């Protein structure tokens, strides 16, 4: 039930042009320095906010409209759109970004553990690139700070196995690409560096900002139904989600160990084990350490601090309806499972089990949500997804059969 007072407040705010959401129910917003927070365990957490246009870095400018939204017809974006579908950006020329970020699967992959290049297996769930433009820490363990620096690690490494010189050569033998680089960057002299920048510009157009939750937060109170509004109240209070999934992104971009179940593939399928173990090895973990644990050590891979073992970045929640399975190891197939998991206070701390010390967050507690409340919370989570984002599959320029030199 939405309280009439809040309803009126929202209507008034809308009339004034102030977008204020109608916070409803038991979780009481707290105002501080002109911002709204929710208080849990004596701590304040920023309220959810609607998403505006994504930030655009100074060193990779792109065209935007009057409100700051990236333009789709910017030559960089057009080039990036092609490149996102371009399998030349991989080792054997068979894998493109789209291979693992499938537009029909929420720009992610409907597979617990992502595929890799042929002959190899990845070790993590493929994340959606929708709204990646807003993140300041990319990847499940947040190890990259911008799309520009993320793209090369996506085309090389475990994803595409592409080598820089070969990918450069493949692009420069295609006259259409040379033209597109010239149009977007003034020259085709540094195509691979510019390819990452074009891909980033394209991904900045893949934003989901008009979900029912966004519209509701902008003051459009019919955007969520009553169950969803009840779910939102739980999200902000009793269910404690706001402690981590907060602010504009519905993510604090911090790292936590939730005690997720193990991914059995790492124990049951040799190829997955190889993917898993080679990443541990590659991150410089001592073999005695990673042979003892069947679990991904997350942030530890980056910092080698023991207290970071098993920590992962809080996932943003927009667009999630399209991107099952969930979590870094894809162990949950739907949002009901997710909510049940939190209702039990998360899971067993495998770091404790494997290494004898705990890194599990103490923010997760048994929530005692009723079945109806869990349904409401799921309904609210579904409200984070706006329309599907579908782009045209570009007709990629074909390399000439033979290269002619001037």
């Amino acid at each position: 039930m939405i309280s009439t007072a809040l309803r009126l407040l929202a209507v008034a705010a809308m009339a004034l042009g102030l977008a204020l959401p109608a916070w409803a129910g038991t979780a009481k917003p707290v105002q501080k320095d002109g911002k709204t927070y929710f208080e849990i365990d004596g701590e304040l957490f920023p309220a959810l906010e609607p998403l505006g246009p994504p930030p655009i870095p100074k060193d990779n400018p792109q065209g935007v409209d009057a409100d700051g939204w990236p333009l789709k017809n910017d030559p960089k974006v057009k080039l990036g759109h092609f490149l996102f579908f371009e399998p030349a950006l991989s080792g054997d020329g068979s894998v493109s970004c789209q291979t693992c970020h499938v537009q029909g699967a929420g720009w992610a992959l409907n597979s617990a553990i992502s595929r890799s290049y042929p002959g190899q297996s990845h070790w993590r769930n493929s994340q959606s690139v929708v709204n990646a433009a807003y993140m300041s820490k990319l990847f499940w363990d947040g190890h990259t700070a911008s799309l520009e620096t993320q793209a090369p690690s996506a085309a090389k490494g475990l994803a595409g196995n592409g080598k820089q010189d070969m990918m450069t050569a493949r692009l420069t033998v295609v006259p259409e690409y040379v033209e597109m680089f010239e149009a977007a960057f003034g020259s085709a002299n540094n195509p691979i560096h510019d390819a990452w920048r074009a891909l980033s510009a394209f991904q900045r157009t893949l934003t989901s900002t008009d979900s029912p939750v966004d519209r509701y937060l902008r003051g459009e109170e019919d955007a969520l139904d009553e169950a969803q509004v009840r779910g939102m109240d739980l999200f902000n209070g009793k269910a404690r989600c706001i402690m981590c999934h907060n602010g504009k992104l519905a993510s604090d971009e911090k790292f936590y160990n939730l005690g997720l179940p193990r991914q059995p593939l790492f124990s049951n399928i040799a190829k997955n084990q190889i993917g898993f173990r080679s990443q541990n090895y590659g991150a410089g973990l001592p073999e005695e350490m990673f042979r003892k644990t069947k679990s991904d050590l997350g942030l530890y891979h980056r910092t080698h601090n023991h207290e970071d073992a098993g920590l992962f970045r809080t996932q943003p929640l927009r667009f999630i309806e399209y991107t099952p399975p969930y979590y870094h190891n894809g162990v949950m197939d739907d949002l009901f499972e997710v909510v049940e998991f939190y209702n039990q206070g998360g899971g067993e701390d495998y770091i404790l089990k494997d290494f004898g010390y705990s890194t599990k967050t103490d923010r997760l507690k048994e929530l005692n949500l009723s079945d109806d409340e869990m349904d409401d919370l799921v309904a609210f989570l579904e409200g984070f997804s706006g329309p599907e984002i579908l782009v045209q599959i570009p007709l990629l320029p074909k390399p000439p059969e033979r290269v002619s030199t001037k």
Partner: protein
Amino acid sequence: MTARGTTGTRWVLVWAGVSLVALGLSMGTAAAAEPRPLAPLPKAEMPDPAKVEIGKYMFFEKRLSGDGDRSCADCHIPEKGWAFPEPLSIGYPGTLHYRNAKTVMNVRFAKYFYWDGRLDGGNDLPTQARDAMTDSHFMAADGRIMGQRMKQIPEYVKMFKKAYGGEPHFGLIIKALGDFEKTLVSKNVPFDNYLKGNKGALSAEAKEGLALFEGKANCIQCHDGFMLSDGEAHALGVPVNPDIFEVKRYTTLRSQQMFLGTPNYRNLKSDPGFFGTEKNNKYFGTFVTPSLREVSKTAPYMHNGMLPTLESVVDFYNEGGGPAVNQDPLIKPLGLTAAEKGALVEFLKSLAGDDLGYRTADYSEDKRPPYELLKWVGQDN
């Protein structure tokens, strides 16, 4: 080899040492010193058989490439003289090569590796193996992943334990490959037997060919010593292979020359050869003299496979090679008769030894040990 004051390649440091020594002795490509006499292959120490055994499996192991679809033996086929029987080599899936694949027979004695001499030989086979495994156009492998792959093949783990007292990792894999290659030495070579005193080991015709090789045809000026190679770069004017402009081959050429920092790498109309290594115009289109050992088994010939048979090679030399900006003055019409040409070919054939007995089929997919699950330490799977 002449000074390699090269910039922009990752071998700068390696070459720097060589240059210092070589500077004083530097002798352009034209004026050859007195050639060293031809000689039988020297006796060479054989590595630990347990390590060789591993290297052998690694040589045939496709799972040592990114896609798990290329082994050394795919391009260095034992039944084809340990080379690839087409003018131009295949590449990693999705790529093709722009050069002919050289044989790995006797490679332990090579002074420099590759047609363009871009890698130091000197017995450093593991470094070359690292190159072959990681290059985008050969095997595109990530060494760290390869180590973990091999660890999940219990038969290999046992072999590594026995030979090295430890588990497989990239460093050991390339060492083992090098040790295996060290055993790829010609065996029972008629010409060597002849030099060692068995006068009947060469036919009369081959003996006449040998005399021409050292005399009228003057091949020995470049093909000298026991490897029949001076390890120097020369331009003969071998015609450009038009297939290097096929897009997948040309991208390999461009990508590699870009990596080497070759000037004007985007507009190359032919293989720059040693110029890519040395970046001095006088080396454009020169290639390092290959060894002629096992040569009758490794057709087609030259860096780009443009000459299909030994007969065509001899014809080519007899006509004074082809046009080339930096053509070596030693390459000039030889005036050989048909019989002399035949004799020269007979001699070249006497440089091949016995088949070492390796069969690709023995290492086919259905025979190789599979990946298996690894046990976790301290807990059940």
